[in-house]
């Protein structure tokens, strides 16, 4: 893989890190309460809104935010654009962490988690009509795939260990993985293609409860494309943040071409979104400026910001701050589309309402905090980030 990646090093327990630990700790305490008292006591979910923040954000939006590994792997391994290779490890790391958090969120959200092991095991009971089953199986498998993809980077920490047995064992495993990894990576491309599109199919079954601006047979395709644009956006943002936080020199040329690719995919997404409305004869709904019409335009507006930025200011395309802002809007647009499809544009009837309860929000924040803690720990101790350190570059 990427031999030039090195651990960032440095002190782990900094001030912000301790703050993150406190947030994760609060979530842990709240989770004890959730499992003891049930979902009604700790969340605002109800029979009308059975999917709340944890599903709509942590799982559905979170796993799309974690599609950086998928998006970069398409470029590097399928389209053979080797220049993006330094992005693979950090992208796979955030994907592995994001999907793991997504999996944990499912465990927290389901009402009867003591039976959840049966979903992957009871294959003779699998309901092949269920899009959610497809999502559950694929995400479970993908979490394993991501950690296997990441494992060479983790093992490299010990391949030159002073304990000969450990060094030998890790080297052998490492080399074996490097040779066979291609079939795992292929799986790492297939699984997100399947479950990210199926996350769209899931909400098709909401029928008339999902507003017609969102309910369409194109949901699987739109969810897949959205995962790709969000994946690229996150990689750009993450590279910019990591390079400043860990004093790495960012490869702006590489990020800039990634930005171009993302703009292309965004154009496809927007075109399908509009053409789909035309094909269904629902274009008029766009012009109804109720909550839903407004949200639709907010989505389109956010989507078009990075596109307009790209076309309006070609000279800024490789400016890191500019790309960061563009990527931010790209990610926000994709996130809003998913959040709307699962929650805001979902309307079970007049008698129901939902706004996440405080413990729900704190648990989500705590899980994000734990994810960032794990990211910082791994990046500081394991060879993930590429590029020269600013210090080395100056010398």
């Amino acid at each position, binding site marked *: 893989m990427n031999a030039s990646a090195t651990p960032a090093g440095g002190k782990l327990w900094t001030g912000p890190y301790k703050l993150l630990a406190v947030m994760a700790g609060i979530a842990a305490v709240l989770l004890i309460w959730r499992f003891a008292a049930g979902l009604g006591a700790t969340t605002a979910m109800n029979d009308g809104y059975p999917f709340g923040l944890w599903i709509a954000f942590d799982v559905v939006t979170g796993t799309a935010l974690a599609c950086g590994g998928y998006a970069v792997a398409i470029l590097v391994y399928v389209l053979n654009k080797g220049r993006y290779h330094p992005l693979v490890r950090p992208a796979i790391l955030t994907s592995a962490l994001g999907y793991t958090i997504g999996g944990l969120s499912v465990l927290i959200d389901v009402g009867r988690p003591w039976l959840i092991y049966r979903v992957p095991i009871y294959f003779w009971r699998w309901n092949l*009509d269920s899009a959610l089953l497809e999502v559950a199986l694929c995400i479970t498998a993908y979490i394993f795939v991501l950690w296997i993809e990441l494992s060479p980077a983790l093992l490299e920490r010990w391949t030159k260990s002073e304990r000969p047995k450990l060094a030998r064992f890790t080297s052998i495993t490492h080399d074996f993985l490097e040779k066979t990894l291609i079939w795992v990576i292929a799986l790492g491309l297939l699984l997100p293609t399947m479950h990210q599109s199926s996350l769209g199919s899931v909400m098709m079954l909401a029928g008339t409860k999902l507003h017609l601006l969102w309910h369409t047979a194109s949901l699987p395709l739109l969810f897949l494309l959205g995962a790709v644009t969000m994946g690229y956006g996150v990689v750009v943002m993450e590279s910019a943040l990591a390079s400043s936080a860990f004093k790495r020199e960012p490869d702006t040329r590489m990020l800039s071409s990634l930005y171009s690719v993302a703009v292309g995919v965004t154009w496809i997404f927007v075109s399908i979104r509009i053409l789909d409305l035309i094909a269904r004869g629902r274009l008029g709904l766009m012009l109804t400026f109720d909550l839903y019409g407004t949200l639709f335009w907010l989505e389109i507006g956010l989507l078009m910001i990075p596109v307009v930025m790209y076309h309006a200011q070609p000279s800024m395309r490789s400016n890191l701050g500019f790309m960061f802002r563009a990527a931010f809007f790209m990610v926000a647009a994709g996130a809003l589309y998913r959040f709307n499809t699962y929650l805001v544009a979902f309307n079970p009837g007049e008698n129901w309402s939902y706004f996440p309860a405080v413990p729900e929000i704190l648990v989500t924040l705590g899980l994000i905090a734990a994810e960032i803690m794990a990211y910082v720990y791994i990046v500081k101790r394991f060879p993930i980030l590429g590029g020269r350190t600013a210090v080395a570059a100056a010398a």
Partner: protein
Amino acid sequence: MLKSVAVAGATALVKASPVQAREKKTAPSNAVGMLYDTTRCIGCRACVAACKEANGDPADTRTPGMEAYDAPPDLNDCTRTIVKQFNDGDQQSFVKMQCMHCVDPACAAACMLGALQKREFGVVTWEPDLCIGCRYCQVACPFNVPKFEWESATPRIVKCEMCSDRLAEGKEPACCEACPREAVIFGERAELLRIAHQRIKQHPDRYVPKVYGERELGGTQVLVLSHVSFDKIGLMHEDEESVPHLQQTIQHGIYKGFVAPAALYAVLGGVMVRNRLVNRTNGNGDSPADVMEATKKEARA
């Protein structure tokens, strides 16, 4: 390269998924059901009480100001059927609400391990050992029927199962047995449809000329006759296509025989192996190996 991938992928997809709508589901030949008639219902709620007794569901004393009574405001975690009153000017009607036992139920299409599915007599029942409490059935149900025990740490899904245990003993559902006016009756679905149409024919002035559930959302096994328009009593769906129909057509189109995913996997793996070989032999300046080499050289310099 991109082109060859696209062509291979598209070919695999086209071969795997002749995009044809899946067959419309029909009720099983021994389908049973209920026929509820608003003109006969006096709103006595004997059915609600009988239902609670038969299912062992507790009284709902949570409604503010009504703590002394079993006064559920709607179907909920301890109420599988309820009688509501709808007023619209001088028109009023009672309506008994419960699971409609759809011919093509969205909840069953949603359910991962088939905890909810059509079982004996086409009745949709819930199997606790197969339910992980994901609540996708609640998202999917067009009538908002399945309820979840939010206040429990070990929650169940609660819905009308047409007293399937009583049916097994040859008895009729508790609500039908309890009804003093035969406003809700039990029987074979085909027979109930015949009775319903006969009532409309005999008293065309009394009824909206439609048996709700004959065709709505692909048909239901609980049928309703009404003297007020159906949307006023909460039965607003007029579409005759079942909720799962379109989604299942697409889902099964993509995944038919698992050919498309398997083909995609083979293509992806093949492309990657090929890329590796190409990069090794002709040293494509863009390959991961070369970038690594260049970075190393740079580091040495």
